[in-house]
């Protein structure tokens, strides 16, 4: 059941109504059952997987909390069990494919080791939540007493498939709090859902048309077109994932639950480190807390810090998908972070240029450069064939050819014979690029909080009407569903 489907449009209000009409004791079990139904709507047998993992982690957490000896071993085995589950479903074919490639190099034969494994929806997200739970219990956190609470923490349907990755202490507190019905939940939740749907259906899905056109045959285009497609993809993926988070937060809000934000205007980041404080915040903080810091974090020798960053981001890339292109994407971001660290250290040694570092020019130049660096990484994210991705990046960086080889006299995108959707999307990308900075300023100043509710309501109504008319004929699933 997709958030942008008619089924969800019926499912959500039904569950919200039942939730608020139910007595307190029934509310959470009801939400749990609803969450399992939501998951079963994709593939019923896989509900057993999520229930099985939940039971294992619930009892393992209790076992770990009570353990006085061999605590480290118990913790390690708990982590291994979770990672093994994730690896089996998500990475088995990737691993076997890599082995097959190695065999091909040696024997020149191509064995087919592929297993018929279905990737369970959202497995990367709930496994990371379980790992976080075991980490916190191991550090001395109190294990969850109620199985229903724990199961709902993992299965809560608004965040079940594509996050944000929740923290159990924060979510448990909300479940145990007495949570009376408030109209504010609806006044906050519904605009979030409408905004999320608008971001997905009006922006991401329309941008996807141009992106699909460009990246299905990247070799056919020159550097300017590839930059344009990459910009379009950068906004597509941002609005796609941001939309999911908005709908998830809005849906959770209708039950009185607060889910933390996952994005904070990432494209106004002035450096790559700032970008990762704004992009997929729940994942980046998870990687920091449960991968980077346990490896030593930044309290070790400089080269080890850089190594930790690279390992963290390579694995972060692999988390996104079982493909070498995602690993390359992760390593690319790791390298950018390492480069940024070294540059910060260099800046500290050049106090004479402090005027430049603090100038407005440098700030905007940094934003521009960061955005473009992120865009280069996005090429690996979008083009699964690593060779094709490298070829595209090479063209983009060398600005060669400016004109497409077989259309030497004409910039392809400017061709008058291209359908109207192309210039419309190009204009959209340009507007989004230009609107980014003023919008971020307005959000920072909380300007939208001061808008009267009836204006917000009218805006939501306009968005709903616009969505009815302007959404593309078919809406693709959310990009992050595949992870």
């Amino acid at each position, binding site marked *: 059941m997709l958030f942008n489907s008619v089924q969800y449009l019926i499912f959500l209000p039904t569950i919200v109504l039942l939730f608020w009409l139910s007595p307190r004791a029934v509310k959470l079990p009801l939400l749990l059952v609803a969450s399992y139904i939501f998951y079963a709507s994709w593939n019923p047998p896989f509900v057993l997987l999520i229930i099985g993992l939940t039971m294992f982690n619930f009892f393992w957490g209790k076992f770990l909390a009570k353990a006085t000896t061999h605590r480290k071993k118990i913790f390690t085995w708990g982590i291994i069990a979770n990672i093994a589950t994730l690896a089996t479903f998500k990475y088995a074919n990737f691993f076997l494919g890599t082995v097959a490639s190695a065999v091909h190099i040696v024997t020149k034969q191509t064995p087919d080791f592929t297993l018929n494994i279905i990737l369970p929806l959202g497995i990367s997200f709930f496994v990371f939540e379980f790992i976080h739970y075991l980490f916190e219990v191991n550090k001395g956190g109190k294990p969850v007493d109620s199985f229903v609470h724990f199961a709902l923490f993992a299965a809560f349907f608004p965040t079940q498939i594509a996050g944000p990755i929740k923290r159990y202490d924060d979510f448990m507190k909300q479940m145990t709090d007495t949570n009376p019905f408030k*109209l*504010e939940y*609806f*006044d*906050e939740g*519904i*605009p979030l859902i*409408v905004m999320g749907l608008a971001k997905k259906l009006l922006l991401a899905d329309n941008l996807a048309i141009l992106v699909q056109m460009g990246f299905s045959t990247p070799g056919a285009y020159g550097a300017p077109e590839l930059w344009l497609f990459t910009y379009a993809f950068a906004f597509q993926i941002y609005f796609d994932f941001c939309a999911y988070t908005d709908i998830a937060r809005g849906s959770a809000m209708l039950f009185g639950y607060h889910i933390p934000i996952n994005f904070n205007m990432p494209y106004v980041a002035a450096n790559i480190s700032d970008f990762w404080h704004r992009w997929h915040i729940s994942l980046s903080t998870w990687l920091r807390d449960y991968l980077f810091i346990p490896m030593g974090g930044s309290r070790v020798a400089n080269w080890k810090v850089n190594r930790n960053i690279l390992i963290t981001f390579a694995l972060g890339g692999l988390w996104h998908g079982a493909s070498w292109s995602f690993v390359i994407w992760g390593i690319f971001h790791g390298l950018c972070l390492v480069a940024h660290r070294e540059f910060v250290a260099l800046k500290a040694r050049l106090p004479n240029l402090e005027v430049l570092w603090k100038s407005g020019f440098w700030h905007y130049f940094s934003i521009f450069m960061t955005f473009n660096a992120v865009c280069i990484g996005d090429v690996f994210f979008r083009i699964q064939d690593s060779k094709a991705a490298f070829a595209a990046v090479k063209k983009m960086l060398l600005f060669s050819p400016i004109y497409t080889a077989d259309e030497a006299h004409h910039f392809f995108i400017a061709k*008058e*014979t*291209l*359908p*109207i*959707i*192309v*210039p*419309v999307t190009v204009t959209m990308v340009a507007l989004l690029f230009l609107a980014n900075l003023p919008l971020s300023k307005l959000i920072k100043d909380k300007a939208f909080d001061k808008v009267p*509710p*009836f*204006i*917000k*309501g*009218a805006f*939501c*109504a*306009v968005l*709903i*009407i616009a969505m*009815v*008319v*302007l*959404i593309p*004929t078919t809406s693709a699933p959310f990009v992050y569903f595949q992870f």
Partner: protein
Amino acid sequence: MAPHTTPAIKALTGTTFSCLVCLVVFNIAINVLFPAGLPKFQDTANLWGTQVAKLPPLMQSKENADVLIVGASGILFPSVRCDDAYYKRQTRYDDWYMKYNIWKYSKSDYFASLLSKRLNKDISIANSAVGGCMMSDQYLILNKYLASGKKPKMVLLFSGPKDFMDNHRTKIEKTSTYVQLADFPIRVGDILQGNTRLETAVPELTEAVMQSISSFYYYREDYRAMLAHETSQITHRPEDLKKAMAMLGTEEKAPLTKKQQEEAKERADAKFAPSKDAKDLALFKKIYLPVNEAQFATQTKYFEKIIALAQSHNIPLQVIFMPLTPQHTAVLPPQTWANYKKTVRTLAANAHVPCWDPVQDVQFNGDDFEDSAHLDAAGGQKFFKYLTDRICDDPRVCQTLTDRNVLIGQH
């Protein structure tokens, strides 16, 4: 001190309520401004080259034909092929001809000439067959055709297994026929008024909801087409890929190499001869298999509804099985094929509707087909001659066309 606000005031001044009010106001404004429904922009809705391109002109036509053909491509193709032969037109077998000639064809003049000759009377035929459509689509076409004020003397319903089973068209309300034709607003009051029997009210309400969804798709498509058209006018860009392709066709092209010229000639020759190699079987495998029993049951109900609709208008209806090649029928599991034929025969018999199966009387061979499912001109001529005989040899059937109670015409 903050002023005291009651929950009711909070609700009324909240974002959610404001949004709902705006939507209601918008809806009222639309209803006041457009009491007959939203304006349509069919001139800009791009039906060019689509299977339903023929429907708006067919529905708007004032011509009240004697015979209405209802069916799918099975009857549409031989109608075109026979008429091309009848008028000595060059027929073609390429996609272009299919899109821009066959899909929009709404006649069957060769068949009409056979009937006219036998009955000594001019018989006109309207061909409402739409490529790819199913029984539910055919029901809607007949419904709208009759609702437009036309009343044929006879309806010929041509049936093939694809009318009942098509894995590519599982959602009735989203087919192009529904999207094009359904413009019924939900009027629950009208449906329930004087209709207190639940067993009839519920299906009607279901149908109205379904048609309303189709209307939504129609309007969305129509308004998007209108917006694209206006933007296209301003920017001088093509509205969509089809028009872009047409523009590309007008551009100057580099001279072809010798090899390219030979390939072009081969392609050109292929336009004028059917392939006869039943390449379409792979497609039909996907269409039929796995057999969707639920869909079969639903479409069967629409088959019954077509019969009931014709009978409620006192229009005689004949059901005719379309001939198919043995290779085609072999795609279906034998049990499914037998069940399809038995179901159609039984339901027709229950409603006292004649059901004719040409393959029992006429020998069709491979040369009669242009592919596995469509009769070519030769097969079409055999088929229409058979039909003419069946109609004219049965006084009960032919009197509906002649308005006389005698058998007319010579063999």
